[in-house]
């Protein structure tokens, strides 16, 4: 068996499929199917594309309910669970806070503007009665961006497994799902990005199966008067959460790993204790670049 690599770009970041197969035809055909699945999810859930389902739902805010397909219903049910289990921190309606925060401007938002945008945040007010969703107020938005990439990793992995690929991995913007160890049984060595020195890993983790996802404060942020403001916004206050610089979580599904790492970041000071109690293997990097957690 030989290793075939397929790098590409999707969902705003670099991605790669690394597949072991008997020959190139098998590997390429699995890779093509996986990429098609990722493209399908990107087109359906992108909020930038005018004909995406997300855009349709957001355009109908304050108006009629929109009927969604089974897969979308599953994703909304999942988002609902994540909202409940995170005490409201994981909220797919919080994307509108972008209207107040411009991370390229170098300026903090006016509190008045932030307060008015906060009126539009709140998954608990969304009328979600599967398969119908209705956003109650004009201007409200939902955004699958907080978890659809991790889901796409799992979905692409499933496509590859069904194509008979038993050794390899799927990676999208640092989020990973392992199809199986190297053919000799050895684990994949996965580097976790250093939150400050972005060209080097802060840790290397051996993975034989399952998923790994990382959330960090370095993906989008600005410095104002020497203070760091990251894009991870608390949906209750509208202000960035500071305390952890990055969290990586290992779970069977990359989707779960991603949600748990996001929630841990949003929990701020309480994130470390929450991770420890949840029991999934994890690694955190705090603001002083101290590393800890069960994977460290």
């Amino acid at each position: 068996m030989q290793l075939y690599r397929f790098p590409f770009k999707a969902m705003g970041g670099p991605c790669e499929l690394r597949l072991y197969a008997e020959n190139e035809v098998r590997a390429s055909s699995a890779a093509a199917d996986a990429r098609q699945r990722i493209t399908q999810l990107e087109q359906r859930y992108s909020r930038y594309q005018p004909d995406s389902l997300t855009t349709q739902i957001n355009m109908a805010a304050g108006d009629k309910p929109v009927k969604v397909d089974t897969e979308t219903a599953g994703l909304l049910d999942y988002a609902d669970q994540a909202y409940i289990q995170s005490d409201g921190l994981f909220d797919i309606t919080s994307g509108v806070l972008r209207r107040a925060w411009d991370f390229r401007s170098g300026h903090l938002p006016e509190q008045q503007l932030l307060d008015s945008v906060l009126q539009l945040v709140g998954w608990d007010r969304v009328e979600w009665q599967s398969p119908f969703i209705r956003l109650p107020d004009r201007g409200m938005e939902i955004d699958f961006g907080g978890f659809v990439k991790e889901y796409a990793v799992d979905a692409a992995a499933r496509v590859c497994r069904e194509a008979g690929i038993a050794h390899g991995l799927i990676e999208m913007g640092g989020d990973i799902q392992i199809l199986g160890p190297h053919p000799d049984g050895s684990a994949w060595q996965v580097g976790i990005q250093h939150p400050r020195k972005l060209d080097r890993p802060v840790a290397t983790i051996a993975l034989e199966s399952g998923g790994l996802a990382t959330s960090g404060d370095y993906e989008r942020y600005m410095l104002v008067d020497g203070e760091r403001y990251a894009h991870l916004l608390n949906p209750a206050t509208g202000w960035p959460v500071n305390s952890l610089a990055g969290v990586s979580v290992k779970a069977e599904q990359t989707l779960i790993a991603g949600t748990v790492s996001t929630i841990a970041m949003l929990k701020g000071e309480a994130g470390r204790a929450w991770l420890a109690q949840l029991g999934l293997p994890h690694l955190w990097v705090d603001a002083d670049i101290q590393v800890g957690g069960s994977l460290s």
Partner: protein
Amino acid sequence: MARRHANALLALTSSALALPGISSKSHAASPAAESQVDYRYSSYSEDDLSRSKTSNPDTRRYEIDTHQFRLVRPWGDEYDVTVDLLYETMSGASPWFITPGANNQPIQVMSGATIDETRIDMLASLRRYYGNETYGVSLGVSDEDDYQSINLGVEAQWDIDEQQRSYSLGIGYSDDDLEPTDGASAAFPDRISDASKDSLTAYAGVTQIINAQTTVQSSISFTRHDGFLSDPYKLAFVNGTTTNDSRPDGREQFAWFTRFRHFFTNLRAALHLDYRYFEDDWDITSHTAEAAWYQNLGDGWQVVPSIRFYSQSQAFFYAPFYGQARTDGFASSDYRLSPYGALSMRFKVSKAWAGWKLSMSWEEYDSDAGHAIGDVDVENPGLVDFSVISFGISKRF
């Protein structure tokens, strides 16, 4: 606090598993992706009989050495093939008949000569995976000096994605021929020279995934045996003399089997609970309950302590010995038809690395009338205690 957080993970996982990109076919059966070869050696050794329970000067019993090979190989995209081979050598003495001793206390008489036997067993099965459906056929043969058997089986399984459930159905048929050693010989003129029997089994089962950590499986099976079901080597003591072991020539059995599996994510451990109920038209009812704890220790190490409890009632025609012959002519003093209970404990340790897996296990089995549910008037003196030690090695490639 910890409990609530553990539930958070459970809640997220069950929502995630309902997603088509994650679940659906991920639990549907699929052909083996890799080949695997297993070898296991087991040494089974029965404890000596206690002096007070046997008339024989030599109290040693059975020992069995077993070598098992298994090969699983994918064949194309839709099939896999499994071949099982077993080679066994048996030696020792086994219970022959029971006589009444002083105060009618039963005394076991063991077969005098040492029995030496070998058994070869081969089973080949082919499975086809077709979307959410799996079909299998199997053919097996078994050969001993005094016994030949051929068996056939077909089975089907359906996975229902939306309900995270699968159903299975199967039937099996077995045709057995016996030619007892020394049958109808000068030494054993009453022992039959040859006989045959056949068995038909049908079963149906359902497996339900409750959530990512929990599954429950339940099945029922019905088996009918026809033909010579007695033990040609055993005798029964009736009215002061011995007579051939004699049982009905038909037996219908019903069994209900349920397994529960729960994985504790935080502990990296799994609890397996199994229960089996059995009854047949010889009036035997039995209960088997087993609990096993699979603990992963990291670095490929796993330890599995387990405990099993068994209890059965007696066959309607069984007696340790008979004052006078039964009107139906049946007679058997086989301890396997007697009322008794058993407790066994097993400990297994294994280590996996780079496609290899080594394992070792040790089991102690103790049967006793005192372990039975309900009172047993007379304990069969032939009840067996044994220990089994096994070593296994397997390789995926």
